């Protein structure tokens, strides 16, 4: 799995490539939790190059969501491939997460709330 982090203002954009699964989840967790420890509460998970996610990958996204929502932050999920979108729908997580078409839209939605 490839992970890259970019900043858009206060928003941390985590670009995920490959598969976010039991094999790769710890790498993602470390990066995301370090950002939370550093004070970040606004996250975009950019799934442009993500082709698969399993229950453990979904689990880490949810625990990230729980942590940042406690501090009035959010995790927005953007640019889902057809497969990843289907996985979100099957697990009904498209109702829990704010799923946006792209990072730009997600950033705007963060700005709206301020």
């Amino acid at each position, binding site marked *: 799995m490839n992970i890259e982090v970019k900043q858009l203002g206060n928003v941390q954009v985590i670009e995920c490539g*490959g*598969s976010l*699964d*039991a*094999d790769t989840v710890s790498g993602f967790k470390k990066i995301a939790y370090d950002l939370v420890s550093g004070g970040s509460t606004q996250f975009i998970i950019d799934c442009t190059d993500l082709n*698969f996610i*399993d*229950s*453990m990958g*979904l*689990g*880490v996204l*949810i*625990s990230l*969501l*729980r942590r940042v929502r406690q501090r009035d932050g959010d995790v927005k999920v953007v640019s889902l491939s057809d*497969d990843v979108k*289907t*996985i979100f729908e*099957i*697990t*009904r997580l498209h*109702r*829990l997460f704010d799923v946006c078409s792209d990072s730009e839209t997600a950033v705007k939605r963060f700005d709206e709330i301020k």
Partner: protein
Amino acid sequence: MHFQSVFKIKSDTRYLTPLREWISSVQKLVDENDFPKKALLPCSMALVEAVDNAIFHAHDGVEDLPIEISLVLSDGSIVMEVTDKGVGIGEPVIPGPDEMADHGRGLFIIHQVMSKVESKIVDGTHHMRMEYKL
């Protein structure tokens, strides 16, 4: 019987991506009627969840314990079986995970995407049998 394969992997998550590549290559090789493209994602999801469970719950991270994978395509169904050395799943399956819980989604996914799921102990090994009806 249109396709049949059985093999063992070690209890290691590094096999997850090769497993998905393998099942995807099988889907490309066999007749579309035996393994329709739309069945690929459900089968990949269920296989990965069952293997995750074998690694973490049945084998508790002991890498050397083998997990047997079997895939059979016959008229009208795709049957996957994941066999581990564990004690099996004692509790009945919960209908859906707590929305905010960060675990407990594996069996839910398997039941959502497969037509029929059975967890049984045969000769002291735990068989997770997952059937996708075409």
